[in-house]
């Protein structure tokens, strides 16, 4: 069976790739496009380590076929730092040690960024609820949640 030709946009860059009809977006990112920041944790949509945005909506790339990217806009962790500068969330995760082994971190960051775009002033409960689909086996979540809340506060202050 012939491979499918997919025309899409990844992190603002138009690009094309070939994929198998059954291939997931996560596999295409990692294996075809050499974007290995998105991780495979569970491959069943439970852990969130493969989180990306599809037309600005947070999804698990393991639960999406690569062919579905046709005509849509994908953003991954690789697109988060701009012009050599880390995103404030990335800075804060580093500063607060909101990561240990790092497997969940790109998913946490992509998910947190999606949250702050939708809700610049989330409560702790809203952060925890939003990130409930991102599993971390190291940090106990507390540092992550605090880092997201503090980043949100700093972004709000900077905007004033």
């Amino acid at each position, binding site marked *: *069976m012939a491979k499918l030709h997919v025309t899409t946009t990844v992190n603002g860059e138009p690009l094309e790739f070939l994929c198998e009809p059954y291939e997931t977006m996560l596999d295409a990112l990692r294996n075809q496009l050499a974007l290995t920041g998105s991780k495979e944790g569970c491959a069943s*949509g439970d852990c969130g380590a493969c989180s990306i945005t599809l037309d600005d909506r947070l*999804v698990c790339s393991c*639960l*999406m*076929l690569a*062919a*579905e990217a046709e005509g849509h806009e994908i953003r991954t962790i690789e697109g988060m730092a701009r012009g050599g500068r880390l995103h404030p969330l990335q800075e804060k995760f580093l500063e607060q040690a909101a990561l240990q082994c790092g497997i969940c971190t790109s998913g946490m960051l992509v998910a947190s960024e999606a949250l702050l775009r939708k809700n610049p002033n989330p409560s702790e409960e809203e952060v925890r609820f939003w990130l*409930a*689909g991102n599993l971390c086996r190291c940090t106990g979540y507390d540092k992550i949640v605090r880092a997201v809340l503090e980043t949100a506060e700093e972004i709000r202050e900077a905007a004033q």
Partner: protein
Amino acid sequence: MTDIRYVAPQTLDEAVGAYAAAGSAARILAGGTDLLVQMRSGAVKPGLIVDIKKIRELTAVEELSGGGFRIGAAVPGAVLAEHPRFRQTWPGVLEAVNLIGSTQVQGRASAGGNLCNASPAGDSVPAMIAAGAVVTVQGPEGRRELKVEDVPAAPGRTNLKPGEILVSFTLPPRPPGSADAYLRMIPRTEMDIAVVGCGVSLTLKDGVCAHARVGLGAVAPTALLVEPAAQALIGSRLDDAALNAAANACRAACRPIDDKRGTIAYRTQIAGVLLKRTANIAAERAQGK
């Protein structure tokens, strides 16, 4: 998985044609949150995947007159939650749809997929049954309508005919004083599969229940419409006697299994408890509290 094909047709006619021609090995792809997991585990090996999300009717949320809505079968939970008026009119249906999985899953998972996956524990199904939702399906022989409660046939099986695709849900007009609610029992606080799910939709007129529908999930091979429970509520002021009678009707309707999530006795008991709590929430909403 070498002989698999993927198509994403622009029209329903094309989708039905491709789906029907491919026979039993074909699968419909909406949000993919069940299908991709099933493919990954090897439980499903589709010969053809028909992605229905390029078809406008399947991804649209349309407001009808008097509080009615038509929801495309592939509309993700997150999209439904962002509709400016759906939440006010159908809070129970929305909370049930939004209980399906994480934020990431909500970005993709649809009520149509939840219904067609035909899990007895699907959260949106009892709420849609309580709402009196009707689905439109289209197949090689044209369109027809089915009540939501008539769609599931058994765990993992529906009453859709070969080649038929779920198109949309139609929710009826809402008289004043109407509201709905959905509750489920899970041992965790979030992100789990229902041990029991209960949807109640009702209309109050001067404090008296004029209309009610009750849906139960995870207590039988398919989600159930529990008419005796609704009858126990109708005509009452939702007093203890009426709620107890409705709770008992729910328990009597249960035909659950024993599994790691709950025993038969536990599920049966909880079905009654949830009925009372869900009916109270629906009533408070109907009174604007």
